């Protein structure tokens, strides 16, 4: 890596490199680029085969230089950057729409007032005809200016044998204008009283459609707020420490895997990495939703965009750019936001037929009123109103817009939902299967209790136990060694180490014979354990593994090791049961330990001693009882079971979120995440149902009323301008209702 300037500006763009096979190619590419005027810095990331370039030279020039050096390169489109650009273009689009709405609105309202004035120009006179003719032409120009995009869209769709929202508006307003012009030129076609023109209706409808679209862009912008907030979490710079120990601030785009970074108190951690020197407590709530800061020491993983609270430390970058956890989350959520829950399928199947059906209904409306003997003006108004009031948008938007907001909300709580189906099913669960190790418990055995006999103290027996266990490969040994190290204890050297399978270990330490193991080891070595037997049994019944320690054949005490239950497991399980969900525990552990843990957290149904490959079968059995089954596991050993379940939850995936088998990934390590997922699922689904219901009702009531169904009874025929207003309002209502989800919050949780 070549450093040219001390103060490096942010890379302007990245190129993807091809046929770069060896690290030495990197050098020749870099030097080829540095020969180009306007390139300040070029940094190759060999692992990712990318190159970050800063300076004034454009991508084309850079690519050419690379090609001349014998390699291929292409420009990488930065999604995050293009997002910003989309925002800008959309803002401009919104302004244009507002302006168009204003112009069409002013002329429309002007003509509307004119038509109510007592001295209006009569179409029975030539002057009146000329004036209305001119106004008609002005209207046409305004319609084409303000609604040209609708007309173009309708025509383009028509060519492709499709009918859209644009089709309805175009035919409705177009028919109004044509009819009006016919009346202007041949007023005698209709009786005197019916000589009314509808230029103002066409103009106001187009103004309302434009206004509605503009407001919708604004409201939609808010639906992706969660994603924007996630993107905004990213740190902008990092303090890199070079080989000489010099520190300098550089933009995070320039970071590479392996860089050593200094993180000071109060700073955001720039990228993912591991702590290599120092310790601190870190607020990870922005990723996990868990409000409690987490303490980190050497070799612990830290994540980009989380907040360093207290200490200063050095870290080594392990993941940069798109590989970081935050980027992965953003990508996952962005993808999930555009998926659909099963409930939306109905609206989808309708949407393809909706517009042609409305066109047919408009024709039928005209036929009915014509045959009953109504005037041409009445027929036009009724049919036009049918076309204008129908709103496929509200129907089509109902689900996607709520999903968009709901998925974003979930991400704020550290719940990553892969798709719409997972989102819907999570709220419908009737049974939830929890894996024991790592889900209910912490998944890492710890020393939970030390009991000593009269002649020994805790520290002594711990020191002996840890000293002997350093030679053991048993999984519980590590728990004892860790515990001893935590007390900054020196381990003694041991001689004649021996391990007896199923019993324990023994060795000579300080000339003393030390035994560490279960009851059998003690009995075979004639150690009397009677005084601690009751306590030992009690510990075992709690699901712990008590180990006896004897020094020179005299019982010294018990060290009890267990996989402790997470503090929040029990409250979460209680809440799940309160929701009416049947909670089941599944584990490969023995019955006794399983039952002990289940009892402590309040679970009645336990499947113990289940082989990993059989977990999926148990899920299947539960599903055959018509239950909708969720499964919570670590996502690695439980993959088949997670895949079999209706909703698979991967918990504590803080290290790797690319878990393919899970429908829902909980970044935090707590079962509370399942509750959050269920709560968000339920509230989102309710929102979707409200939207779908509203849109269906709106259309199925609005269309018949527009067609004049109430006219024979109440003499009511809807004004097409009111229909235009209702149509614009209906899709806005759907978007606004979905936006209400943004305000949803879960008690006691930080989003």
């Amino acid at each position, binding site marked *: 890596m070549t450093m040219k300037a001390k103060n490096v500006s942010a890379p302007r763009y990245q190129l993807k490199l091809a046929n770069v096979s060896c690290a030495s190619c990197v050098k020749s590419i870099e030097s080829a680029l540095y020969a180009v005027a306007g390139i300040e810095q070029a940094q190759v990331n060999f692992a990712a085969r990318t190159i970050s370039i800063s300076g004034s030279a454009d991508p084309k020039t850079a690519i050419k230089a690379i090609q001349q050096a014998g390699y291929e390169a292409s420009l990488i489109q930065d999604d995050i950057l293009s997002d910003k650009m*989309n925002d800008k273009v959309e803002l401009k689009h919104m302004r244009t729409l507002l302006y168009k709405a204003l112009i069409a609105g002013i002329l429309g309202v002007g003509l509307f007032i004119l038509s109510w004035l007592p001295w209006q120009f009569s179409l029975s006179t030539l002057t009146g005809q000329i004036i209305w003719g001119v106004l008609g032409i002005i209207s046409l120009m305004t319609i084409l200016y303000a609604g040209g995009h609708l007309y173009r869209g309708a025509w383009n769709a028509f060519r*492709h044998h499709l009918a*859209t929202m644009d089709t309805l508006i175009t035919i409705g307003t177009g028919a109004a204008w044509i009819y009006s012009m016919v009346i202007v030129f041949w007023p005698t076609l209709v009786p005197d009283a019916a000589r009314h023109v509808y230029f103002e209706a066409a103009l106001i409808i187009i103004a309302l459609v434009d206004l509605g679209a503009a407001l919708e862009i604004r409201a939609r912008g808010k639906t992706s707020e969660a994603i924007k907030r996630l993107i905004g979490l990213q740190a902008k710079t990092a303090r890199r420490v070079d080989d000489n120990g010099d520190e300098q601030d550089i933009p995070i785009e320039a970071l590479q895997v392996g860089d050593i970074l200094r993180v000071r108190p109060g700073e955001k951690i720039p990228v993912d990495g591991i702590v290599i020197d120092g310790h601190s407590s870190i607020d990870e709530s922005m990723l996990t939703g868990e409000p409690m800061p987490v303490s980190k020491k050497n070799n612990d993983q830290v994540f980009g965009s989380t907040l360093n609270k207290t200490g200063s430390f050095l870290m080594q970058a392990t993941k940069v750019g798109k590989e970081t956890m935050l980027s992965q989350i953003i990508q996952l959520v962005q993808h999930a936001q*555009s998926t659909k829950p099963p409930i939306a399928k109905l609206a989808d199947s309708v949407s393809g037929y909706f517009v042609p059906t409305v066109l047919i209904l408009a024709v039928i409306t005209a036929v009915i009123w014509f045959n009953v003997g109504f005037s041409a003006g009445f027929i036009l108004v009724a049919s036009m109103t049918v076309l204008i009031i129908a709103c496929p948008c509200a129907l089509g*938007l109902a689900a996607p817009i709520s999903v968009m907001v709901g998925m974003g909300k979930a991400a704020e709580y550290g719940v990553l939902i892969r798709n719409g189906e997972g989102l819907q099913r999570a709220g419908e669960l009737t049974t939830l299967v929890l894996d024991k190790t790592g889900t209910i418990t912490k998944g890492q055995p710890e020393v939970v209790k030390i009991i000593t006999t009269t002649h020994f103290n805790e520290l002594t027996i711990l020191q002996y136990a840890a000293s002997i266990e350093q030679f053991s490969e048993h999984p519980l040994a590590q728990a004892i060694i860790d515990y001893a190290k935590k007390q900054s204890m020196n381990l003694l050297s041991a001689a004649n180490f021996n391990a007896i399978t199923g019993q324990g270990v023994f060795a000579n330490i300080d000339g003393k014979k030390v035994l560490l193991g279960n009851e059998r080891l003690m009995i075979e070595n004639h150690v009397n354990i009677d005084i601690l037997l009751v306590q030992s049994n009690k510990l075992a019944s709690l699901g712990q593994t008590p180990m006896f320690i004897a020094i020179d054949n005299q019982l010294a005490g018990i060290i009890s090791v267990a996989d402790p239950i997470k503090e929040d497991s029990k409250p979460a399980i209680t809440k799940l049961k309160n929701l009416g969900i049947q909670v089941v525990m599944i584990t490969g552990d023995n019955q006794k330990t399983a039952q002990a843990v289940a009892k402590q957290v309040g679970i009645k149904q336990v499947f113990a001693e289940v082989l990993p490959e059989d977990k999926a079968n148990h899920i299947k059995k539960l599903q055959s009882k018509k239950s909708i089954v969720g499964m919570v596991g670590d996502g690695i050993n439980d993959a088949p079971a997670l895949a079999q379940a209706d909703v698979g939850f991967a918990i504590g995936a803080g290290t790797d979120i690319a878990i393919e088998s899970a429908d829902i990934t909980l970044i935090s390590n707590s079962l509370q995440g399942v509750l959050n997922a269920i709560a968000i699922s339920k509230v989102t689904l309710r929102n979707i149902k409200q939207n779908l219901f509203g849109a269906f009702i709106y259309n199925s009531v609005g269309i018949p009323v527009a067609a004049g169904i109430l006219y024979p009874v109440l003499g009511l025929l809807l004004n097409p301008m009111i229909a235009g207003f209702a149509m614009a309002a209906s899709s806005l209502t759907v978007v606004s209702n979905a936006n209400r989800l943004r305000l949803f919050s879960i008690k006691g949780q930080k989003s």
Partner: protein
Amino acid sequence: MINVILFNSIAALLIILIIVWFWLIKSKSTQVQVDEITVYVKDSAYSPNRIETSHSKLTINFIREDASPCSEYVLFEELNVHEQLPLNKPHKITLTNLKSGNYRFTCQMGMYQGELIVTNQ
């Protein structure tokens, strides 16, 4: 009387035309010769909106020129592909392991509609 017959006949004809044009006739498909095709998202439609390929791998280069937010996403529901389209910038979507069949692609609301027809064995 002639008026009545004329009006009703025209209306009936219109209904038939609507059904035939929007339901029965599908737009001509564009045969992809190589394994890449550009689709414009413009004026409320995908052009071309019917794509036919005999390959099992296809790259579709979407160019979205329509600023309306409706066109922001393109979904291939059966293929589980959902992509956000940047404005005025090509966005490539590569579909692999395509099996024979018809796959609909739409915007989020299903107003923009297209169809991908795969005919390989």
